[in-house]
């Protein structure tokens, strides 16, 4: 099983302790779908631990395809499935990963393909700390 498949497997199993082992503890950077950024794998796992259980039993990442690139890069094409009022919603997305020599994830960049304007799974809380700071600064300028 590749590092990315292991990540997806543990994510869908909601096994956050095992999931944390997929990431580099010392070198991690995640750019979310809104350009929101998280610089610590511990912070990212804590975020998932808080948010994922609130998304309902049907929430999962369905893999379309995973492939490895040269130089420790990998790509997952996915569909994020979640239920709202009994209706299954599907959001296609791509995650581009960088892996270190031990196969641990050091970089994640997420790209969603929202057609509608509903918040993503995880709601607006899905936005990282740096993004919130930027928004507060922006509001103060106004």
């Amino acid at each position, binding site marked *: 099983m590749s590092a990315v498949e292991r990540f997806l497997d543990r994510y869908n199993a909601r096994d956050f302790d095992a999931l944390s082992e997929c990431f580099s503890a010392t070198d991690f950077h995640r750019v979310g*779908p*809104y*350009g929101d950024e998280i610089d610590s794998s511990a912070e990212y796992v804590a975020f998932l631990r808080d948010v994922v259980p609130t998304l309902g039993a049907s929430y999962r990442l369905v893999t379309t395809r995973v*492939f*490895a*690139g*040269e130089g420790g*890069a*990998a*790509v997952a*094409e996915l569909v994020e499935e979640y239920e*709202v*009022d*009994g209706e299954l919603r599907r959001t*296609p*997305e*791509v995650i*581009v990963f960088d892996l270190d020599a031990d196969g641990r994830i050091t970089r994640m*960049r997420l*790209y*969603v*393909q*929202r*057609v*509608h*304007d*509903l918040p993503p799974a995880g709601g607006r809380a899905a936005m990282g700390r740096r993004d919130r700071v930027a*928004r507060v600064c922006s*509001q103060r300028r106004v």
Partner: protein
Amino acid sequence: MSTTPETQSAEAQIREVFRRLFDERDLSDPSAFWSDTSSDAFLAAGLTVRGADEIAGFFRGLFAAVPDWKLEIENVVDDAKGQVVVQWTGTGRFTGAPFLGIEPTGRSVTIRGVDVIRLDADGRIDTNTVYYDGAEFARQVGLLPARDSLADRWMMHLFNNATKLRRAVKR
């Protein structure tokens, strides 16, 4: 195409396609980039464009709508088996022709996205699925209110009330 696929990596081939398409806007010979069976899926726009001529037409429309459209490649992932992923940021001002049924608003847009591309045996784009945040694009061109604006908060408020109402009716 003018490149030699058998001697160039897929990354080099796709960088050349992007250079000619976005830097030079060279759409004089669409068959250099796509075949008649190629497809580009812009799912966020609800649009799949098929065949070299139609795909070229899509890009002519984009360049007419956003005359200063600039696409910067951030990274390319090449699996050495004909699959290439291009991470990019596109910027420009919507000052030209209507696009996808939207009248030009004059607003600037900055969109990050990714193209998931499979090349054919001739080094042309066989399939491309384009991922970008359609809602964010709509916000930036002014089709939707800016995030966290008063109008945005009201829209969210109305949406949540409608959801609660539907839930109550179901009960």
